């Protein structure tokens, strides 16, 4: 032992300065444990420059030391491995050459691990993502523990970049190209069991025995499945070509060609297999440099930080807090209430279900059972967990159980009268600390809270339809809402895996207010004689998931009309009463749910053009003509201007929040980084010019707001 080790006894972090981020310990059986440590004050270990330096120094010391019989790379404790590269590092990359150098540095580092003269084992408990998994891939073996925080994967493409520390090269060499591509292209973070089934790790072990079994693996005492290398097949370039082409076609279909990173990943993974790993790594570094400095990655990274930043809403005086909601009552089990209830139940909250209509409660249970059943079938949930989640959904038609609820969430009809009398009844029965949340989309929280005892506990929690899928929740602070209530409501949103967005009270809050001008503009275009198909296609070409007319049908014309009426009353004349929608509603067209709206819907849910539409709308018959230029720009510009107004009025704290909301709540294409970022890409002056042109042609709804004028004359900046 003595010749190798100026190293430290087991269990104590090394005292040498270079090892602040990496500790070395030898076990009594002379296996060297390389332990990653988090930066001071951090709760996860990230690969930043200090970490890279520390790891380089550590490798310096252990390379060529022959008395170590094996090496185990592991995290500082249960649930902590290596969560990936520091994303701020990537965000700040501007120069492709510099980016390439950074990738090469990481690659060299991991290549040194791959070349260590004794068996290497990654002992994974906790997140093992991106660069963390690429390090694990450089080891001979990977053992993942069953710790609930264990997640394995290469999420890089989700941030618009390719894996850059050897992931695109080592994973195909480990699994073969065909099996390696899906994890790279989806960017999924797999739980330990799934990672093991997919071959991303070699064994799944009990968390408590991870160190012991990793040591055994390093000593060759753990029987691990020998992998039959599929490399032979991958050496044949026609096979590679076929696999790569198939993956490319599929990716193009799914990303509509908007995202370069997955395509580059396919390319470097496939071409890298054609030669030695050195050549492959060089290709990969170039691809990283290109994608990381490109506009899509910059936009996606920005959104990542905005989303992370939204966690601040769940904090009070800078201290993160929890919602403290264990028991809730959901009153009104329609589409929204039901969806919210089942998400709460899934996350361990008991939910008393109240609705005057027993059928609504029954449908809530059916919907929950379907969802949990699917989760069990896809092994995302254990059967007993599904039973427990169903047990948490507790029909309480008589209103019993309110006395112990920490949260009452109402999702009843959008009537101020009804909501106020409901809260008045509830307020005296719930414990004093209970949150009273309203899912209203069109009423003001202030009006609902007015006159209630302790109005500071009333908060808006505006979910979007369908609740299970839409990732955003607007947390609405009325004038009397206490900061604590708002923070707890935001924490609740985070706990059910939604992104909270704190908005100030006011008609339409944020999302509906920026969505409505776009929908209104679509109606205007219809009236001008543009075909609904052309309008929708223009929006989809721009990158939106569905066009505005189709979206109206999906949302439901009654719901859309209610929101539009509120806005028309609050902000005339920019917002006008929804005349077209009223006409459709008058002929019982509610959108997709009633089978007809602007479009007609077949039994299979397919959307088809309705030749009868002009007559119902009272418009002259139309014929397909030339599609007007710049349709998408006109559709969105009114929304951009409204978004700027929201910033100006302080509906949101930061302009970035609007971008985040536009992507999560509105479906604005993430690769464009958000509605304001996209609109301001060419500068405020250009935006002002375009707005002024449209103002001249189409009227007051394109009136530039004060903020835009100031921005254009550089008297203000967007926060």
């Amino acid at each position, binding site marked *: 032992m003595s010749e190798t080790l100026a190293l430290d006894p087991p269990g104590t972090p090394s005292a040498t300065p270079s090892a602040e981020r990496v500790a070395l310990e030898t076990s009594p059986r002379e296996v060297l444990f390389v332990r990653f440590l988090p930066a001071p004050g951090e709760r996860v270990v990230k690969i930043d420059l200090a970490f890279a330096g520390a790891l380089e120094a550590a490798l310096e010391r252990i390379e060529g030391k022959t008395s170590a019989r094996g090496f185990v790379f592991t995290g500082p404790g249960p649930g902590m491995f290596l969560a990936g590269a520091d994303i701020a590092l990537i965000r700040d990359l501007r120069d492709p050459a510099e980016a390439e150098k950074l990738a090469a540095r990481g690659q060299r580092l991991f290549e040194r691990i791959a070349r260590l003269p004794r068996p290497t084992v990654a002992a994974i408990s906790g997140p093992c993502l991106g660069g963390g998994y690429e390090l694990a891939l450089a080891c001979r073996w990977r053992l993942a523990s069953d710790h609930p925080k264990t997640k394995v994967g290469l999420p890089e493409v989700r941030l618009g970049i390719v894996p850059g520390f050897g992931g695109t090269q080592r994973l195909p060499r480990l699994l073969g190209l065909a099996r390696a591509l899906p994890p790279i292209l989806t960017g999924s973070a797999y739980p330990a069991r799934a990672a093991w089934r997919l071959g991303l790790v070699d064994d799944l072990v009990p968390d408590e025995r991870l160190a012991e079994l990793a040591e055994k693996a390093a000593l060759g005492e753990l029987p691990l499945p020998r992998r039959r290398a599929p490399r032979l097949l991958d050496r044949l370039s026609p096979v590679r070509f076929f696999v790569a082409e198939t993956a490319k076609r599929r990716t193009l279909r799914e990303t509509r060609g908007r995202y370069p990173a997955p395509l580059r990943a396919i390319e470097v993974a496939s071409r890298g297999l054609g030669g030695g790993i050195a050549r492959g790594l060089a290709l990969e570094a170039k691809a990283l440099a290109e994608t990381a400095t490109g506009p899509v990655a910059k936009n996606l990274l920005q959104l990542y930080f905005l989303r992370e930043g939204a966690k601040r809403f769940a904090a009070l005086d800078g201290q993160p807090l929890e919602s403290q909601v264990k028991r809730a009552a959901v009153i009104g089990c329609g589409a929204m209430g039901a969806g919210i209830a089942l998400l709460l139940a899934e996350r361990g909250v*008991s939910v*008393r279900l109240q609705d005057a209509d*027993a*059928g609504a*409660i*029954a*449908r809530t*249970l*059916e919907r929950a*059972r*379907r969802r949990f*059943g699917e989760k069990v*079938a896809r092994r995302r949930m254990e059967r007993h967990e599904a*039973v*427990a989640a169903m*047990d*948490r959904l*507790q*029909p*309480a*038609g008589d209103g*019993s*159980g309110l*006395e*112990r609820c920490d949260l009452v969430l109402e999702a009843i009809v959008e009537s101020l009268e009804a909501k106020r009398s409901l809260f008045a009844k509830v307020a005296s029965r719930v414990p004093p600390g209970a949150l009273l949340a309203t899912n209203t989309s069109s009423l003001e929280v202030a009006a609902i809270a007015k006159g209630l005892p302790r109005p500071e506990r009333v908060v808006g929690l505006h979910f979007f339809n369908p609740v299970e899928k839409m990732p955003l929740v607007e947390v609405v602070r009325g004038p009397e809402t206490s900061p604590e209530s708002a923070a707890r409501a935001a924490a609740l949103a985070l706990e059910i895996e939604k992104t909270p967005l704190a908005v100030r009270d006011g008609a339409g809050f944020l999302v509906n207010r920026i969505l409505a001008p776009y929908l209104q503009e679509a109606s205007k275009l219809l009236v001008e004689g543009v075909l609904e198909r052309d309008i929708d296609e223009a929006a989809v070409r721009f990158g939106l998931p569905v066009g505005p007319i189709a979206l109206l049908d999906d949302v439901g014309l009654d719901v859309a009309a209610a929101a539009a009426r509120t806005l028309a009353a609050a902000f005339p004349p920019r917002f006008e009463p929804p005349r077209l929608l009223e006409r459709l509603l008058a002929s019982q067209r509610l959108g997709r749910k009633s089978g007809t709206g602007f479009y007609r819907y077949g039994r299979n849910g397919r959307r088809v053009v309705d030749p009868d539409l002009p007559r119902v709308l009272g418009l002259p018959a139309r014929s397909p003509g030339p599609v007007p230029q710049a349709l998408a720009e006109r559709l969105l510009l009114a929304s951009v201007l409204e978004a700027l107004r929201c910033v100006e009025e302080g509906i949101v704290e930061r302009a970035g929040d609007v971008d985040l909301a536009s992507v999560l709540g509105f479906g604005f294409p993430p690769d464009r980084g958000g509605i304001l970022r996209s609109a301001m890409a060419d500068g405020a002056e250009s935006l002002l010019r375009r707005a002024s042109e449209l103002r001249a042609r189409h009227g007051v709804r394109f009136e530039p707001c004060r903020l835009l004028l100031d921005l254009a004359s550089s008297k203000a900046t967007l926060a």
Partner: protein
Amino acid sequence: MSGAQRAAIFGGVRTPFCRAGTDLSSLSASDLATLVVRETLVRAGLDGSEVDEVILGCVGPDAGEANPARVAAVRAGLPVGVPAATVGRNCASGFEAITAASDRLAAGRGSLYVVGGTESMSNYPLSYPREFGRVLAAAQRARGLPAKVAAFARLRPRSFKPRVAILEGLTDPTCGLIMGKTAELLAREFRISREEQDRFACESQNRAERAREEGRLGEEILPVFAPEEGTNGSPRYREVRADNGIRPGQTVEALARLRPYFETRHGTVTVGNSSQITDGACALLLGSEERGRALGLAPLGYLRGSAYAGCEPARMGLGPVYATARVLDREGLALSDFERIEINEAFAAQVLACLRAFASERFAREELGRPRPLGEIDPARLNGNGGAVALGHPVGSSGARLVLTLLREMRRSGSRLGLATLCVGGGQGGALVLEAA
């Protein structure tokens, strides 16, 4: 038992009682129990940590839930540290849960219990003969294909004949009689005519119908959302609000048309004048008065005393008479002290036999060793909301339902004392004396 530590009953709730194979058939015994245990706590404003133990009666738990009380307690959200026991005394299992808790209370082991019973007779298991199990075990142990084949070769067609738990469970292994036959025996012994039985059954139905219409049953029922059976994976849910064994507008004439079920030629017991095979659960909150005060709970009534007594298995239907005699002696009461009485209606013939035995001097002398009969029971005081003939008899939960119904009836009528008693397959009776709060 009377005195300082009488057990208070703070309230309770039951599921609708539904004929086996109907509205509640997709729910297991623990599914049903989960609902009532949870609701009992919710209505008392408790979160479960206050409870010392959950004790439920259940006669036929599903193979997958050996201790349904524990399954229900955990699923209902009680802290895992709260223990739970499933107890059995056949038809008196619900009573057994109540008396077990009150005994623990009296012994100072705890002060608050969730008690009750649950039964899903729809889900009584079918099992294979023992022989089949032995063959499977042998095949599993056998090494090599030939040995395995040889093991299976021992199977005979009869090895596959299923054993129906509900039939076997309703047959007494000590006297070899199915329960309906014991009722036939009592009908012969006490000379109870078919017509008398049908009149009694009809009255039970009519009273239950009235009680349902007047909302008296609704007060004790927790509506249940039950998934419909047979829709794989994503069933439809239906709200079940009411007992479904009640036959509106039941007449003696209609009952008279039914064929005897157990003795087809000369019998008198029909499905119409017997209790029904039913799914249902009932839970009560039971504890010391002191604890109730501390938690702000208002008692619905008190358990003053209880007794069980054995009798001839073939005459199990007379169990209430033996048990009542014993509890009257213990508490120093007379039958005439009770303003409300619930006798579980296993069979109309059996209840009528009890009424005759209560009133019979000969029975008192020869069977109970007392000089005078126990007394007459005024039919107006008996089973005011109908009984198991109309509502059904989910074996493990009936005892708890009798107590819940009786306490509510006592409160409504301002009665001071009530008696709940039932007969037990295997030859026993149980009797509880309840006091108004």
